[in-house]
């Protein structure tokens, strides 16, 4: 029999208002950027007919992928029966929904005709993975929302396991859909691979858990609520495993591409001579996003500060990975005429440069702002965070 878990809203009002104002300002800046872009058109951005998805997509896809992974702690508690995580599960569901909201907001606000959102909600082409994703995203809200309710409503706790399994399967399918957006692009040499889907799932596990840990550690510190060393030790080891798995998938993806001679050009571009793309891959995705966190998380004498630093590094590395994947994949020109050097007035045969403008930077950052704003507000208004997360109270839940 497990003990009752007491949850309480955030009590530190000054910290809440500071966070609220900062995140609300970020969200407002993004909205202003959207209105400006809608008025003038995308001509005021760094995007063009070659780099059609820019920085807003980098942040949006990162947040959507991370949303799926933020559900890890809840899944580990409900699906895999690790009841030590049970008190931490509602926060996991909340962070997951807030990240998805941030990502989707940016995605929608970057549309050429975001005023036609109702069209996207009423007209479907079911051969499109994009259309499927619309159902997967909205369904995710319904499934995780129900899961949260069943977890928090004591009378229905017995159904939480079934809801947890549904949410777990749903988010795997959701991230498969997100990865497949790229995997299904037959003509783009940097993508067009079935590995994109499982690779995105692995990335999601690392990014989502890292963001969850940042939220948990920050909330407990601000609120001065006890957080046990044992649960942290397990969570940081779990994160390190996901980071290592992500590195493995990235290596497998590039090594597979290198095996095929026709892909040597695009691989050389990303790995060797792609300028900022190459730097972001090696310094951002590999060094900051994988090697550094692995050292910080696994070297002896780990502290809470080191765990937070590792998680921030994972987030920065994840953004670098999305930049390399999304911008790098478009920067490499399509090869319409193999064996020919080509030129045209439409930049055929050239590596396409991209420099994000102010408006798209603001829109992109607002995704983080919206996700954080929703998380902070929900934690202030609703009871998601346990009063005690120390090892003794958590041990009472472990069977």
């Amino acid at each position, binding site marked *: 029999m497990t003990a009752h878990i007491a949850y309480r809203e955030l009590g530190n009002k000054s910290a809440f208002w500071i966070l609220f104002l900062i995140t609300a300002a970020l969200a407002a800046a993004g909205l202003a950027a959207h209105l400006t872009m*809608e008025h*003038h*058109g*995308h*001509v005021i951005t760094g*995007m*063009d*007919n*070659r780099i*059609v*998805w820019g920085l807003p997509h980098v942040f949006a896809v990162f947040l959507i992928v991370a949303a799926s992974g933020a559900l890890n702690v809840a899944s580990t508690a409900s699906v895999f029966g690790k009841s030590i995580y049970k008190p931490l599960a509602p926060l996991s569901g909340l962070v997951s929904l807030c990240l998805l909201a941030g990502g989707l907001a940016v995605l929608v606000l970057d*549309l*050429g*005709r*975001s005023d*036609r*959102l109702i*069209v*996207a909600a009423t*007209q*479907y*082409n079911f*051969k*499109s*993975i*994009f*259309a499927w994703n*619309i159902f997967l995203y909205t369904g995710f809200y319904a499934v995780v929302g129900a899961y949260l309710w069943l977890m928090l409503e004591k009378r229905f706790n017995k159904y939480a396991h079934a809801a947890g399994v549904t949410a777990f399967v749903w988010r795997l399918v959701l991230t498969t859909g997100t990865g497949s*957006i790229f995997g*299904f*692009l*037959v*003509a*783009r040499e940097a993508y067009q691979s079935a590995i994109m889907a499982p690779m995105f799932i692995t990335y999601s596990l690392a990014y989502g858990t890292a963001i969850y840990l940042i939220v948990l550690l920050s909330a407990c510190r601000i609120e001065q609520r006890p957080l046990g060393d044992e649960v942290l030790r397990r969570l940081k080891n779990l994160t390190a495993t996901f980071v290592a798995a992500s590195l493995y998938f990235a290596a497998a993806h590039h090594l597979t591409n290198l095996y095929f001679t026709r892909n040597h050009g695009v691989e050389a571009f990303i790995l060797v001579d792609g300028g900022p793309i190459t730097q972001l891959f090696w310094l951002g995705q590999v060094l900051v996003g994988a090697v550094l966190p692995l050292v910080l998380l696994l070297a002896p004498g780990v502290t809470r500060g080191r765990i937070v630093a590792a998680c921030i590094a994972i987030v920065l590395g994840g953004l670098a990975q999305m930049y390399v994947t999304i911008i790098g994949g*478009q920067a490499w020109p*399509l090869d*319409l*005429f193999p*064996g*020919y*050097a*080509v*030129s*045209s*007035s*439409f*930049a*055929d045969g050239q590596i*396409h440069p991209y420099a994000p403008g102010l408006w798209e930077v603001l829109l992109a950052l607002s995704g983080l702002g919206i996700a954080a704003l929703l998380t902070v507000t929900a934690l202030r208004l609703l009871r998601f965070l346990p009063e005690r997360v120390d090892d003794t109270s958590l041990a009472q839940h472990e069977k």
Partner: protein
Amino acid sequence: MSENGQPSSGRRNILGAGAAAAALAIAPGIQLITTAGAHASGTHALASNKQRWGLLIDTSRCKTGCTECASACARENAIEPGAGRPAQNAQWLRKIELKDKVSGRELSLPMMCQHCAHPPCVDVCPTGASMQRADGIVLVDRHICIGCRYCMMACPYQARSFVHEPLHAQNPEVPRGQGCVEACTLCVQRVDRGQQPACVEACQASGGAAMVFGDLKDPGSEIAKRVASVASSQVRADLRLDPAVRYQGI
């Protein structure tokens, strides 16, 4: 309501006035539909899968530096350079200059939407705005395009453009819109009137005669005879999208 269940005269007047106002509001739309219908029925039947419109481009006749086709396309469809960077301008048809990396042989050819039989842009479009007519012409429904640009990511020919800024002068027959994606329509407004696409007409007028337009399914058409008698190829034929544009001499 009056006692006998009929609308009272005052109410009838209001209803009548409302109906008249509604009729006035709808009338111009009806007029447009009628005109469009008359247009279509007067010259050409509805698009049919008995036809497949296509182009054959003879690269040996296409001159390096000649941009008559691209200029005619821009004129016909009212595509003007915008205020942004060149890569932000719409280009429905562009000339590509090619040089064989081994032999040094040089070629020039026009590239535009290839009107694939299995178009990836139509597959990926979430709303169905990217669509294919029965006669194979691939179009964008500007009323339901949300500007997500996924079709631009999917097109192997980079044939699509996104409208990056407000538009001013437009050809009423070729509606365009800021925030939507667009591409070569094979000058569908001309084809439906029994005319040739503007690029083909301009190429012939300039004496180039590098472009032939017609029905690939009509064995008696010039394009079908040429395709049956000379070697021609489809760009990125390895993707098996079966484009309706064929090139001779590459």
